């Protein structure tokens, strides 16, 4: 388990990226959801030992990983949000190099292991090619391969599905799910579907504060019956946005299919009640003004509590 207490990170500027985060991450898949600039990557990098926090503590299975970051590296698989490789090495060479640096061992040797891992991420065809010739998706898959290697206790993946096509994304979901059976997998994303598919638990972070820690089901249930969907013309949409809590607006054949959150239960004319999705719950929480007001303690706003109900803690 990862225990984070009062984690603060202030960049020169000053920019406060984390404003005192308290979080417990259990074994299994755990999602960290939030918009761009929320502080997800900052938190990931601190846990991966790549960024020094301003204050706060974090332990992994009771061991302090902030004061001695080298203690986490032997048990870590990390896929950063942005990364590159040595351009002149082939995919296989690069992977073997990283396997050696990570001290990974396998019964059949590293070369065989590298081949197997590349097979897992569908890169066998390009194993001998220089990395500089890889597409963005191929680089992402190579990054996934190195993150999965070894038997890491903690896997941190930051925006892992960027650049992957739908088939590859599904394949990656299977891999992560397999990994999460007996280790901590911390998945940071702004794609709600990733959390919905993979994570039995997740936390929502915004502007450096933890807004909520819950499960997808609990999040949906908190707004069940309050989501309505209808169609409006482009000229009507601005008025609707002013008067209602619009969670989504998708253009379909020239008109906007709009979903609104109406906790009072009185929808706009022509709107029908629909089943709430996790995306609705997330967007309701992210509404400006509603989410920011009333932060206390760990930053879970009163409004969020009213909206989402009490957080559900999954027993260890």
């Amino acid at each position, binding site marked *: 388990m990862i225990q984070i207490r009062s984690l603060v*990170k*202030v*960049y020169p500027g000053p920019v406060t990226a984390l404003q005192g985060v308290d979080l417990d991450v259990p074994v299994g898949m755990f999602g960290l959801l939030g918009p761009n600039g929320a502080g997800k990557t900052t938190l990931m*990098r601190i846990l*991966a*030992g*790549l*960024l*020094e*926090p*301003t204050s706060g503590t974090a332990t992994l299975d009771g061991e302090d990983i902030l004061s001695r*970051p*080298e203690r986490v*590296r*032997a*048990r*870590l698989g*990390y*896929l*950063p949000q*942005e*990364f*590159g*490789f*040595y*351009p*002149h*090495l082939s995919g296989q060479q690069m992977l073997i*190099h*990283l396997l*050696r*640096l*990570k*001290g*990974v*061992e*396998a*019964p059949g040797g590293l070369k065989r*292991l590298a081949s197997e*891992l590349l*097979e*897992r991420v*569908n890169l066998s*065809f*390009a194993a*001998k*090619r220089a990395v500089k*010739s890889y*597409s963005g998706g191929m680089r992402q898959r190579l*990054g996934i391969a*190195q993150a*999965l*290697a*070894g*038997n*890491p*206790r903690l896997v941190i993946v930051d925006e892992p599905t960027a650049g992957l096509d739908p088939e590859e994304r599904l394949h990656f979901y299977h*891999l992560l799910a*397999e*990994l999460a059976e007996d280790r901590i997998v911390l998945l940071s994303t702004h794609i709600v579907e990733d959390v919905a598919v993979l994570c039995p638990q997740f936390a929502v972070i915004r502007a450096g504060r933890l807004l909520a820690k819950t499960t997808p089901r609990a999040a949906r249930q908190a707004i069940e019956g309050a989501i309505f969907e209808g169609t409006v013309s482009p000229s009507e949409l601005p008025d609707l946005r002013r008067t209602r809590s619009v969670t989504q607006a998708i253009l379909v054949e020239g008109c906007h299919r709009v979903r609104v959150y109406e906790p009072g239960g009185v929808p706009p004319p022509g709107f029908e009640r629909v089943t709430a999705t996790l995306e609705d719950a997330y967007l309701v929480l992210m509404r400006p003004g509603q989410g920011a007001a009333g932060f206390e303690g760990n930053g879970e706003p009163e409004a969020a509590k009213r909206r989402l109900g009490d957080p559900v803690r999954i027993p260890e």
Partner: protein
Amino acid sequence: MSSASGARDPRAGSLGRLFEVFQREFIHNLRRPLFWMLILLLGLLSWELSGGHASISSGDARVGGTKAWITSEYAISQLMILMISIIYSFFVSVGAGMSLIRDGDQKVGELLHATRLTPGEYVWGKYLAVLASFVWVLLMHLGLAMLFNHVIPHGENRDVIGPFVLGNYLRPALIFALPMLVCAVGVSFAISGLTRQPVLVFALPLAILLFGAFFFWEWSPAWLSLAVNRVLQFADLTGLRWINETWLNVDKGVDFYNHQRVGLDALIVAQRILCVIVGLGAVGFTGLRFAIQLRGSRGPRRGDAAATAPDLIRPEPALLGELSMRSGAPGFWAGAIEVARGEFRELLKHPGIYLFVPMILIQVFGSIVDTGAFDTPLLNTPGILAVKNMNTLTLLICMLILFYTVESLQRERSSGLAPIHYATPLQTTSMLLGKCAANTLLGLAVVLAALGGCAIVLLVQGKVPFDPGPFALAWGLLLVPTFLVWTAFVCASFAATGNRYGAYVLGIGAMALTGFYQMRGKMSWTFNWDIWSAVRWSDISVFELDRSALVLNRLMVLGLAALFLALTVRLFARREADATRLVHSLRPRALGRAALAMAPFAIVPLGCGLALAFLVHGGREGETTKKLQRDYWKKNVETWKGAKCPSLAAADLDLEFDPRASQLRSKGEYTLVNRTADTLLQVPVTGGLHWKKVSWTMDGAPARPEERARLYVFAPPHPLAPGDRMRIGFSLEGRYPDGVSKNGAGTMEYVLPSGVVLTGFSGPAFAPIVGYMPDVGVEPDKNKTDPHEYPDDYWRRVLPAALPMFDGWCDTHIRIIGPAELQHNATGVMVSEKVENGRRITEWRSDSPVRAFNVVLGRWKVKRGDGVAVYYDARHPYNVDEMLEALVAARRWYGEWFAPYPWKELKLSEFPGLASYAQGSPTNITFSENIGFLTRSEPKANAAFWITAHEAAHQWWPCMVMPGEGPGGEVLSEGMAHFSTILLTEQARGLEQRIAFCKEIEHRYGNTRQRDSERPLVKVDGSLPGDQRIIYDRGGYAFWMLYQLMGRESNLAAHREYLRTFRASVDHPLIEDYLAVMRHHAPDTTAFDGFVKQWFFGTVVPQYLIADAERVRTEGAWEVRARLKNVGTGVMPIEIAATRGERFPKRRTKENAWRHARAMLTLGAGEEKAVTIRCAFEPEKLIVDPDARVLMLERQKAEIKLRLKREDGRLASR
């Protein structure tokens, strides 16, 4: 696009976009520490240089004499060229070279080039911005120089600051600096743009420095033809060779340099234009290639793999668990090896290694054309090559280490791998070690390439076998610590600054400052981390001198390497530091704790550094020694300078040496005779600063002379009347040399395990010097006075000898005890020799009285001739026959021309090259291994023969006729020796070598004379800059011209009379005495007087230029017409010859048959005359003074290829 007001938006259009790129880059550069660091460095250098420490070698060094201004256009031009070439070029390579690479690293390219911005606008905008940035730096540099030179008040450097003339600063900037900047920025830009390899951008400044410092700016032997010289001037794009060869090497006078503008000729104008073309062309080419790369218009190369995954049905992969992977942490060495392996793969793919290795090879191969004394090609031995190339290897490899190590440390960040790499369990120390080890391999590759190059040089040379031992010693033991400490420093710089530019700035700054202090002569063993020019090679004495300093220095450097590595490990940030915590860590307590943690690593370097500082301070060039010497001067100069004293009648010496400890014991007795006309109440003798356990006797009884800071003053019981004698006995022991040098200086005398060289007249190394030594304790910038000015009739007095101690003849008896393995040579003949109990004991007596004595010990083989012998190291037999031939010829011909050689044997003894000199002590010439033993004789350059002939001539001048104490005296010794060499060379070796020798000494004189402080031969005393070349070279040539004027027989007869007159005289001659004798034998006294007035009492030297030269066919013959002008001074009859063919070919054929037709002219200063020469052959060249009979300046310009005048009156092209 227009703004609301309707005004045109400046960003619109092509020019607008270009300006936008320019503006962004320029503003960015203004904020970069790189540029401010360069300005700081230039400011510091300007401040230092405003003290007058680097000025043109011109002017009058005397008080009130005009000095060369450092603010003249010439001085600023020279300085500007050096600054641009050595300092700016490296910063340019970073600033310009990384400009495009930086955009690539920051991945802004995709965004930029998706706009309307064209590749050309982008490239030119960037280039112009970088160029403008460096022009801005240049302007700041000029401003600082003006401030320090003309605004800040001056003290001691007042004399070298001229009036402020803005043009003196702007013209050099426009002519020399700006074109070079355009070129360097453009080429660096192109290299980075085309290759995208950060390290390659440093190839340009490295090439400039290597080829400039070690070839273009230095190599200019006298035998180099003008045409080739001009080509080299053009090829050196810095312009330094041009300005040196055209304006500075031959002194035009301080008035000229202080007031004239730098005259430009077609060559330099064309070269500056070429610089601009190269620079702009490089950028243009970069733009074209960039456009091609950007649009991907190049199709796929053959062999490119398929771009997409094959369309296959993939089987369902097995579970991850089945892979049975285990996590862990790599061991220290496993991690380091893996990192090194990765780095090495990158290195091999990098083109740099294939560029820098040939660079070092070219440098090494240049050793084949290295020249030494008299531009004689050197014979390279493994040790000489090893040490000679140390500086080049240090410079190149340190630069490579800087660039490659920084880029290696930066690699993960640049490639984006850093988050993954730094998150692995690889230990930081492991990673650093792996990277450094891989980059060390690059250095090793360069060293091995250099080793291979040296082996090839030795093979081509074909005389000296290859031996890896000296290379292992010099490069392995001495250079490796340099590379280790530098690598560690670079790593620490990167770790401390956190980025590549910070590391480059610190690295280049450190090298620049080190180089600057080396040039200023302020370096010492304590700070000479790269032992630049501090090491000498001798095959005979391998690193014996200053060995303790060398060892301590290397230990200190290794300790520093460990300290820097520890700092690197501590500071290297795999984890990005928090700013708030960083501030807290800078609090005194935290800093103190950190310093304490580093303290153990500082013990070794600090300890060794302190020990070195003490050694240097107390060493033979240290402050303690200087103080003792100053005390000697202060105490005694007013009382004893010029005081009369007795001279040596006999010297009886017992010497015992323990070379392993550099110890000597000396016991002896001088018999002194008063040869002056005065009664002497006191007799001073000078002792050595290194003497211990000194005791004296006087006339056999113990004595306690008055000690005045090592001048011992004896008061004989009865005053010493003229003709009276007394005996002074002494006993002493000491270490010699006593202590280390400041920074690796050689020494003329020493006691070392490989041998001993001691003279009885240079200083009190092993026996006292009678009298006060006026040069001891005199420091050039502190208490050196202007030369003594003698009245014109000074020579008429009865003058003492220039060496008062040897005013008369003396007998010597020397007994020497030393280790059995060392042989002995001393003055006179050996009367006995025995070896017992591991000691060799020899006894020597002068078979005829002498005027000096010396002692030499060594391990030799001997080759004998008729009354001569050469004692040489068994490894150096190459030129022994030539030296023997010179000795035999000298004995015979000098004996016939001047006077028979009075002693039984003339010996020549080789000694280690700890100093480069030869000395003609009576019967025993000492000769350094590296000025004649290790040369390759050629007709045009033959140091072995010439130097031997010169030193042999000293047996006559001054060993037989000791000049008087006064101006011009030394000319009668050294100038006469040169003159004798001229005669002997023609006699024994023929006209070709004689002409070559004359040209050599003429070239040396021309390039080193200082016009404003040059004094006539009758006045020169060796105390001013340039005097030595006047004494040796002008003096020798003047005697040679006098010989021709008088005719051989008259002149030689006169010399014999001169010898007879002054050989035993109490009156010692000066030049006027010599000339008086010569005049008696002159066939034409009017011509004689005219000649003497110019060449001995004046400072004339002609210089001839040929103009309008053409050859015309007339009535079956040829006519050469030209105008000849004397642009120098003096009136001399001069021969001019129309020639065809090769005068001294290797093999004579019909095609190269030499023919000549001559005419004689007499031209005064500034005079021009037409000359016509009729030839029966078709002439090719017109040569002034083809037989080198007249001393002139810039002889190479007095030779021209003839052009044919066609029937239509036009000149044909060559």
